[in-house]
């Protein structure tokens, strides 16, 4: 059982709603309660309504965490965010209100470190489709407006020992710009480069993030 007593994990999937099957199984093995946040894909204008969308999903994340604490006041709550879910979870943890206290630790899983940079410059089909979804050059020139929502911006003030970043070496979303950003981030945050793809669900990847929160939980118990 180890150090998993009274631990809850909130799982925030990517916008494709890919299930956290391996993590749900890992939680069950350890006697941990897992909670999946189910949210709608983005709606509204991709730039102008982006922060409102992040806020709306953040409210859902907070509702899940608050419900856990209402039922188990001593619960230690950790958050796993995959892809867009990681970007939003980082945004949630950076909010200047009580929301930032929802989690004792975070794991960023396959998160594009700067979605704005990716969408402005990226050659990946997702970046090209994002530009294609805009009305023209004037809107494309405004993609930088969403930079304050980037994971790098959100983690700027986050406690460095309470966030693990997992990066897939076979992740085709991570271009040279993303790798350069991760090289800077890894000087601050624990970072793992793993033989994995964008979904980051390989057994070793899953085991490592659970080891991270177990270590955090052990540290929290001793302090």
């Amino acid at each position, binding site marked *: 059982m180890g150090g998993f007593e009274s631990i809850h994990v909130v799982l925030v999937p*990517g*916008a*494709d*709603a*890919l299930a956290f099957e391996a993590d*749900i199984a890992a*939680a*069950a093995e350890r006697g941990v*309660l*897992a*909670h*999946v*946040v*189910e*949210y*709608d*894909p*983005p*709606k*509204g*204008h*991709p730039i102008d*309504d982006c922060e*409102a*969308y992040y806020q*709306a999903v953040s*409210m*859902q994340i907070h*509702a*899940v965490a608050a*419900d856990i604490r209402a039922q188990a006041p001593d619960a230690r709550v950790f958050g796993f965010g*995959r*892809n*867009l879910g990681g*970007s939003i979870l980082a945004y949630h943890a950076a909010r200047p209100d009580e929301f930032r206290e929802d989690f004792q630790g975070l794991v960023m899983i*396959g998160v*594009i470190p700067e*979605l704005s940079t990716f969408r402005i410059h990226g050659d990946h*089909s*997702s*970046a*090209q*489709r*994002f530009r*294609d*979804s805009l009305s023209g050059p004037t809107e494309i020139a405004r993609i930088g407006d969403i930079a304050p929502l980037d994971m790098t911006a959100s983690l700027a003030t986050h406690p460095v020992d309470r966030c693990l970043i997992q990066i897939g070496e076979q992740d085709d*979303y991570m271009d040279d710009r993303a790798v350069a950003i991760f090289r800077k981030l890894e000087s601050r945050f624990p970072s793992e480069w793993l033989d994995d793809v*964008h979904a980051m669900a390989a057994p070793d990847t899953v085991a490592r993030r659970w080891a991270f929160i177990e270590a955090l939980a052990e540290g929290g118990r001793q302090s």
Partner: protein
Amino acid sequence: MMEKRSIIWFIVAGLLGGVLLNGAAFAAGKHTDGDSGVHTDEHGTPLGVPGDPHKVDRTIATSSRPITSTASRHCP
């Protein structure tokens, strides 16, 4: 009588086709919004048109719908 039966078969075939198309999108692991038909990738960007993953399918990429709340799920 024959004409009436043809209409019924047409409706049944249409319904079955809709169910199969939604099932295929679900099996592909992509999010399909049940009421709007919006399809996105892992980062919320609309999916591409068949045969060209770089281009957005503007027939399904809506941009003016309100954000709606959804549930969370507890996994014991």
